[in-house]
C-alpha cells in the first residue's frame, strides 16, 4: 500500500514537474550555428551535400538568419516531409515552425554558398505530449486516490 502510494505520488509530482519544465522552457532561447551550408553538388551521378541535423525537444518557432545565396530547405528527418523552404538572396531573416519534437534536416538546395544561424525563440510541447502528460497524470492521481481510499478501510 505505502509502496504504491509513494510510487504513484512520485510519478504524479514528476508529471507536474514535467509540465513546469515546459513552462520555463517556453521562452528559453536556444541557438544553432552559424552553420555553413554548401550547395548540393552533382557531378555525373555522384551527389554530395552538407547536411545539418537539428534536434529540438518541443515544437519550436525558429528564426533563421541567413547570408549568401541559396535555398534553405528543412525536412522532417523521419518521414522526409518538407517543413520549410526559403530562397535567400543576399541576406534574409525569416521564421518558420518545427511542428513536433525530434530531428530535422537542414540543407541548401541552391547553387551558391550560405551561412545560416537558427534561433529557437518559442518552444511549446506538442499536443501528443500534452495529452500524454495530462492523461498519465490523471491516471496516477486516480490510482493514488483509489489507494488512499482503500487505505482508510
Amino acid at each position: 500500500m505505502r509502496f504504491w502510494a509513494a510510487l504513484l505520488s512520485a510519478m504524479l509530482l514528476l508529471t507536474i514537474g514535467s509540465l513546469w519544465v515546459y513552462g520555463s522552457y517556453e521562452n528559453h532561447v536556444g541557438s544553432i550555428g552559424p552553420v555553413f551550408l554548401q550547395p548540393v553538388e552533382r557531378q555525373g551521378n555522384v551527389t554530395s551535400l552538407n547536411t545539418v541535423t537539428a534536434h529540438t525537444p518541443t515544437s519550436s518557432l525558429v528564426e533563421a538568419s541567413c547570408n549568401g545565396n541559396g535555398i534553405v530547405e528543412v525536412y522532417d528527418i523521419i518521414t522526409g516531409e518538407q517543413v520549410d523552404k526559403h530562397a535567400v538572396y543576399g541576406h534574409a531573416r525569416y521564421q518558420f515552425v518545427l511542428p513536433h519534437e525530434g530531428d530535422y534536416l537542414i540543407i541548401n538546395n541552391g547553387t551558391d554558398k550560405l551561412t545560416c544561424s537558427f534561433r529557437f525563440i518559442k518552444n511549446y510541447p506538442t499536443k501528443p505530449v500534452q495529452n500524454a502528460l495530462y492523461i498519465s497524470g490523471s491516471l496516477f492521481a486516480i490510482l493514488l486516490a483509489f489507494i488512499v481510499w482503500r487505505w482508510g478501510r
Partner: protein
Amino acid sequence: MGRLYKLFRWEMNDVVKNVLLFFGIILLGMAMKESLMGVSSSVRFASGMEIQLFGVSKASGVLTSILGMLSLDDVWTLMGFLVLLLGALTFRYDRDSGVARSIYSLPYSNTEIFGVKLLSLLIYGFVMFLLPFAYVSMTTYAGILKYLPDITSNFLSDALVLVIFLVLYLVAVATFVSLASPNAFLAFMVGFAVIYAPRVTGLSNVPPVLFINAISRSGSTDFTPFTMNYICWGILVPLALFTLSWVLIRRRDVV
C-alpha cells in the same frame, strides 16, 4: 509462500524507504527531463551515388538525447547515494534500532530474510531508475512515439544491460557494506567511499565510471556489453558480494 509474502510486503512498505523512493523518482526524473531540454545540432557531409537522407536511423538527435539520459553524471551520483542509503536502511538500520531482534526471532530462516530483503532492495533500485527513464522518454517524445522503438532499437538493449550491471554492482556494494559494518552511518560512508573513490581518482576501468562510459558507447558497431570486463564487474563481483553477505548474515549474530 504466504508467510514469505507477508515479510516481503512488510519490507516493501517501510516508511523511510518509501520516502527515499519518492524523492529518488522525482529527482532522477527531473534530472533526466532537464537534460533533454535543449536544442542541439550536428553537421555532416554526405557524398555518393545514392544518399539516404531520411529515415528512422537518421534521427541521431533523439538517439543521443535518450542515450544521454542513461549516462548522466547527476543521475548516477544520486543513484549511488540513494541505493547506499536504501541498503543501509534495509540491512543495517533495523539492527541499529533494535527492530531486528524481533524480526530475526520470527520463524524465518536468516536466508529467507536475506532473500526477501535483497529482492526488495533490487526492486527499489531498478524501479527508481527505469521508471522515470521510461516515463520521461515516452512523454517527451510522445509526438513521435511510434518511431521510438525503431530509433532506440540498436542501442537500448546494450545500454539497459549495462544499466542492470551497474545497478547490480551498486546494490551488491550496499548490501555487503551494510552487513559488514557496525552501524548504518558507517555503512553509508564506507559504501560511498568505495563507489566514489574510483571516480574521484579517475580510475576508468572500475565501476561506476567503467559502466557510465560504456553506456555512452553502446550502439556503436563493434561494441558489446558481453565482454569479460563488463561481465566480471557487472555479474561476478555482485554475485561474490551477495554470497559473502549471505555467509555474513548466516554467521553473524544480530547485534
